[in-house]
């Protein structure tokens, strides 16, 4: 089936599409202020007239390329091109300052390549069987999957869990605007026909990640010029043999975090970095140009990409913000991700595997060859880049339904996203809320109808109970010191002298 997936994907001009799409992804990722989410959202517009196969390949290539591209500016400018690359600045930039920018980029390329490959392997091994397991999920379970996604994204993705939850529920609320499915009643439309049609996911995402980013980028200080001297970028085999444990550990952490709803590449990179530092014999070098630290961060963030696609394919729940846009694009192209995918088009999972491998290989080629041109790209002043990005945002918001209303939605969402960011609300739960809103809404009502208003099946069915327990644990995780206090209680009880 895997060979069939490759054969299917490699038909036509797949390699050509992969090369240009990965290049665009790398450029988007490398430019500070342009994120992978924005890149995938904008490129979705370009794929409207393509077949689903080519469209998915292009978007996956952009996603893979953008996550990797962020490391370029992290290493050369000390500014992460995407949030995912923030951990790479810790050791990448010190290496560049020592005159080892090329070596740092080589390590980044190697780590990123191995990370995506590792994650893709996990996807190929587990997604089909997990997809079959997910067939047991009914309305009650899918309700909890959606709630779990919001809670875990709120707990872990923003530092401030309370604001994460609020952002998640604001996203869920936005998803309720427009006609609901049971009675075609237009919620929060106030008699407006456009609002009754609902807020399109893509215009909102383009607003939150595109317009808000443009506004954010234009108010900060100007980025300084980069070093123009680059040593060899060819990775060394010794880096793999010496740090194979770090690579495997970071790959596993990255893929696992990717598979958790809504967490994403930034957390995967930080967690991989922290785990590598804890386990390293040379931890004093971390933050001062550690090859191992850079390798861990890059492997973790890139392994997260296939990881984030696992729940998209099996549960229709995205593992990261770019994966959320990818999922929306799948739906636009008539592919319905989720548990039924294992029955309707099981070969699609292997086609995605093939696309990830192709994207990863092309990324490796660019990583080794495309160094100087990317330096020029990084020097483009934001005063010339950002208006072009804004123009592309407008096209992206409008193109899907050809409504001027969607441009207003984009502007409104951009403003909301900017204000929420200024108030330190994380964006990942908001996006997850937007994407999961429909899933939660339908399954809650369907579950209530099926049980005749009885809430108990939401808690008593075995999988529901497990998911409910996980959701409660995820919420408790966010309460500062709660687990320590519980552990303290138990230790006191054990330590207390027996009568």
């Amino acid at each position, binding site marked *: 089936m895997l060979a069939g997936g490759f054969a299917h994907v490699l038909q036509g001009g797949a390699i050509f599409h992969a090369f240009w799409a990965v290049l665009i992804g790398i450029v988007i990722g490398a430019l500070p202020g342009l994120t992978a989410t924005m890149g995938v959202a904008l490129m979705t517009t370009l794929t*409207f007239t393509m077949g689903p196969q080519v469209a998915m390949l292009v978007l996956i290539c952009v996603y893979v390329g953008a996550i990797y591209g962020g490391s370029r500016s992290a290493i050369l400018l000390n500014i992460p091109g995407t949030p995912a690359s923030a951990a790479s600045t810790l050791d990448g930039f010190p290496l560049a300052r020592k005159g080892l920018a090329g070596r740092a980029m080589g390590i980044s390329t190697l780590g990123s390549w191995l990370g995506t490959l590792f994650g893709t392997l996990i996807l190929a091994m587990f997604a089909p069987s997990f997809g079959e397991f997910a067939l047991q999920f009914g309305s009650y379970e899918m309700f909890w999957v959606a709630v779990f996604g919001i809670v875990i994204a709120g707990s872990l993705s923003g530092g401030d869990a309370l604001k994460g939850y609020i952002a998640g529920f604001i996203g869920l609320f936005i998803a309720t605007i427009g006609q609901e499915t049971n009675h075609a009643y237009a919620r*929060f439309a106030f008699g407006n026909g456009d609002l009754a049609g609902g807020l399109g996911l893509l215009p909102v995402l383009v607003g939150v990640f595109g317009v808000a980013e443009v506004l954010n980028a234009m108010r900060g200080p100007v980025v300084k010029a980069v070093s123009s001297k680059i040593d060899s970028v060819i990775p060394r085999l010794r880096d793999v043999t010496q740090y194979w444990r770090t690579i495997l550990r970071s790959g596993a952490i990255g893929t696992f975090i990717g598979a958790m709803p809504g967490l994403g590449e930034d957390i995967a990179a930080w967690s991989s970095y922290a785990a590598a530092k804890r386990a390293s014999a040379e931890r004093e070098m971390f933050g001062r140009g550690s090859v191992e630290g850079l390798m861990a961060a890059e492997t973790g963030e890139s392994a997260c990409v296939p990881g984030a696609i696992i729940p998209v394919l099996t549960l229709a729940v995205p593992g990261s913000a770019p994966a959320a846009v990818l999922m929306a694009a799948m739906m636009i192209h008539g592919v319905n991700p989720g548990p039924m995918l294992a029955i309707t088009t099981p070969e699609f999972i292997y086609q995605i595997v093939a696309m990830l491998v192709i994207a990863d290989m092309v990324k490796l080629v660019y990583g080794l060859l495309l160094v100087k041109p990317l330096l020029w790209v990084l020097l483009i002043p934001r005063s010339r880049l950002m208006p072009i990005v804004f123009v592309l945002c407008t096209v992206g918001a409008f193109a899907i339904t050809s409504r001027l209303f969607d441009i207003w939605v984009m502007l409104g969402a951009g403003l909301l996203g900017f204000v929420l960011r200024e108030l330190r609300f994380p964006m990942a739960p908001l996006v997850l809320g937007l994407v999961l809103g429909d899933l939660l809404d339908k399954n809650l009502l369907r579950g209530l109808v099926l049980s005749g208003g009885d809430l108990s099946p939401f808690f008593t069915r075995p999988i529901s109970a497990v998911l409910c327990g996980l959701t409660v644990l995820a919420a408790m995780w966010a309460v500062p010191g709660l687990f320590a206090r519980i552990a303290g209680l138990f230790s006191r009880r054990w330590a207390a002298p027996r009568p």
Partner: protein
Amino acid sequence: MTPTPEEGAASPFAGDRAPLPPRADLYTAAVLLAFGLGVLGLALNMPTFAEQSQSGLTAPGIVPGFYGIVIAGLSVLLGLRAIRRGALSASAQHAPALSRADARQLGTAAALGILYAGVMVGTLPFWMAAALFVFAFTTAFEWDRGPAGRPRRIIEAALLGLGTGLAVTLVFERLFLVRLP
């Protein structure tokens, strides 16, 4: 496995800048409380369609009402936390949210963005709207670099605008057959 932003690097998380003063959180909580209660009120006023569904369990207001309650509840918690952190204390210092230069740049970007997307798009041909926007944006943000080389920068901005308008139109409309506004 909670991620720990390390010293010396910009955290990717929301708290990567200086923390907000507690009073800002208190105001935010007040706005969110009003919003949550507003959503709840609107949800309660939605029809229940009980006569059609026999049970009222498919009422359109159930889910948004639930969200409204949760948002209101969480905003109360946010407000209480802000008070515990000293939002009501008279000595609470207010750091300006934006510097004057930042606010000016932000205002310029937002105004030009709204003028372009809200007014010019749909009124003018797309290539022209895009060209004018890119030209105005670039010129506005490069104006402060001083008079030296300004005419050249303005010409470059005009060429960039024209190039963007034409390239976007050609690539999207002709190559990828995407409809433009």
